[in-house]
């Protein structure tokens, strides 16, 4: 190992100085571990270190509630009295020739001081009307689920691009060294691209917690233990923590010996760091995912009571716990919104499953003073047609739909944009997915034109060459 010390060139010096950084990083980690006892959220080292945004941020973190399958906007958040009047008349658009307009079977009423019109299907969320910023001029490129879902997450339905959450983490880093900065809870099957980092370094991809596809997980969910959420490999089945620490100390001894032997070996530094982060995650994650320290009132607030609201309620409560612990971006998902038929029964059932949990989340964030800098986003991948399909259903509609945001520096009790009289097409305050992404990054203090990553010879952005920030929705 010392054989080339006589030939200590400038290059060798630089290399060994840089491998010395491995020791520095390790010392910093050990120091952080000592401080972790105080449960402070020390910033992570390296690529996850918390970074200053481009300008003052309104939101520090995001909870994205993804509604897979595309909820009907004209039955929930986009009130269309003209559609009710014209019920049964021949529709102007749509794949089905002569599809008849279908007025919403549900009542709408005004809520809060702002008087936002919301349907009776969302009674609990309606109570938070003055926090909601309804975006009723949304539109996207394609009326197909897979493409629209990928576009909603990455901005692009043709090519593999980094997820919105990965960009946010790349831009801002993480506030907690013991947890991943981007977490996807209960992601659906085949949704890897929604949460991927594509060409961004893989450290920015989402850690997928819970029933992430696979038959095994479905079976586990079916057992009905009520504990659906899990993190892969978070616990060693046969070693207690202190014995595993002995093993890990030995592994790190081997690793550091290699680091000392090699003149230049940056990968080994990464190995040392990632083992320590993993060990800390083992300690922190199970506790965070264990809801037993929450009060009965809190569980009830989220609808965690064994009823239809339990499943999404648990996710919402976990989301609050994660953001509270310093996670930058949390995505929850809820499926089966694709109501081509049986709208009259299935839509109320789906709304019921999410209404109380989401309202509980908003209440809880507010009382903990987290809503002011936590951006909550609710969105499906597109909307549904004003004309009916088979009498009791609605078809896909990418031309106009509604999503909403709350907290995190958006105007509450506010509706931005509108569709035409029947709810078919966005006509005012139009917001394409690119504009939506630009606005979300803006709320996080990031300029979507400056947040770039060089790949394949050019700089890439989440918004490609598009995107206009909707300044009117900023509080």
């Amino acid at each position, binding site marked *: 190992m010392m054989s080339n010390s006589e030939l200590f060139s400038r290059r060798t010096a630089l290399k060994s100085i840089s491998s010395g950084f491995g020791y520095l990083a390790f010392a910093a980690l050990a120091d952080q571990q000592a401080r972790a006892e105080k449960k402070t959220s020390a910033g992570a080292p390296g690529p996850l270190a918390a970074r200053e945004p481009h300008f003052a941020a309104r939101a520090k973190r995001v909870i994205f509630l993804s509604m897979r399958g595309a909820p009907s906007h004209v039955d929930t958040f986009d009130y269309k009295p003209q559609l009710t009047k014209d019920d049964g008349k021949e529709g102007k658009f749509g794949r089905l020739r002569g599809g008849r307009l279908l007025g919403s079977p549900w009542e709408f009423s005004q809520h809060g001081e702002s008087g936002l019109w919301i349907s009776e299907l969302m009674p609990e969320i309606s109570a938070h009307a003055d926090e909601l910023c309804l975006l009723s001029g949304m539109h996207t490129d394609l009326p197909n689920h897979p493409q629209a879902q990928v576009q909603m997450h990455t901005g692009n339905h043709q090519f593999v691009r980094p997820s919105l959450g990965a960009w946010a983490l790349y831009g801002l880093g993480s506030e907690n060294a013991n947890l991943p900065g981007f977490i996807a809870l209960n992601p659906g099957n085949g949704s*890897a*691209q929604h949460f991927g980092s594509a060409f961004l370094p*893989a450290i920015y991809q989402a850690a997928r917690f819970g029933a992430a596809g696979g038959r095994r997980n479905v079976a586990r969910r079916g057992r009905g233990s009520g504990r659906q959420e899990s993190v892969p490999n978070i616990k060693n089945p046969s070693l207690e923590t202190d014995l595993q620490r002995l093993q890990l100390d030995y*592994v790190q*001894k081997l690793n550091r010996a290699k680091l000392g032997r090699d003149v230049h070996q940056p990968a080994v530094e990464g190995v040392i760091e990632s083992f320590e982060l993993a060990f800390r*995650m083992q300690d922190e994650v199970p506790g965070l995912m264990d809801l037993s320290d929450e009060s009965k009132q809190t569980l009830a607030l989220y609808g965690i009571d064994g009823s239809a609201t339990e499943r999404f309620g648990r996710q919402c409560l976990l989301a609050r716990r994660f953001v509270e612990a310093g996670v930058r971006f949390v995505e929850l998902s809820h499926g089966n919104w694709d109501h081509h038929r049986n709208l009259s029964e299935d839509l109320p059932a789906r709304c019921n499953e999410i209404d109380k949990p989401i309202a509980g989340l908003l209440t809880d964030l507010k009382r903990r003073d987290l809503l002011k800098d936590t951006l909550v986003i609710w969105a499906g991948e597109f909307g549904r047609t004003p004309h009916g399909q088979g009498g009791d259903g609605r078809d896909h509609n990418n031309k106009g739909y509604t999503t909403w945001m709350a907290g995190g520096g958006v105007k509450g009790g506010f509706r931005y944009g509108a569709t035409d009289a029947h709810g078919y097409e966005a006509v005012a305050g139009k917001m394409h997915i690119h504009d939506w992404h630009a606005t979300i990054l803006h709320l996080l203090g990031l300029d979507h034109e400056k947040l770039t990553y060089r790949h394949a010879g050019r700089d890439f952005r989440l918004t490609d060459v598009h995107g206009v920030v909707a300044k009117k929705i900023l509080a």
Partner: protein
Amino acid sequence: MDLERPRGSTVARAGDTVVGQRLSPELLNRQVTYRSVYLPFVRDGLPESLALFDAADPNLVTGERESTNVPGQALYLMNNGFVLRRGDVMAQRLIEETPEAEERIRLAFKLAYGRKASTLEVEQGREFLWSFTAAAVKKGEERSRAGYKALRVFCQALLVSAEFRYLN
């Protein structure tokens, strides 16, 4: 880092390689010990272990592989049943080959790193086996079981260490 090379080597070092079987992604998710040459992919169904270890996204044209160290990988190496089993099989092989603790350590280094263990490494290995066994016994584990556990955990440690995972 990528998984295929360490996976193949892990299986081979532990000594339970099976040759001549078509490997499907389903098989890879199960606990099989085939060394893989080609692997059929379902585009959206990348096995989780591969996705974790920077396998090229089948939807992308990837000129050069990413090589990352994310904690999910470390969790996999520390706790996944597949990796634990490899440590187990390797420990059994050491026991079959020699009854002498020091010889087992030397053989383990030879199998894992393809080189002789230094005097210091043998000493540290002995020290680890001794202190781990003592700690396990203190927790109420029976002595011979604790000794085997120490050897198994020692083998796993070599298999997940940087020297095993990275080419120089």
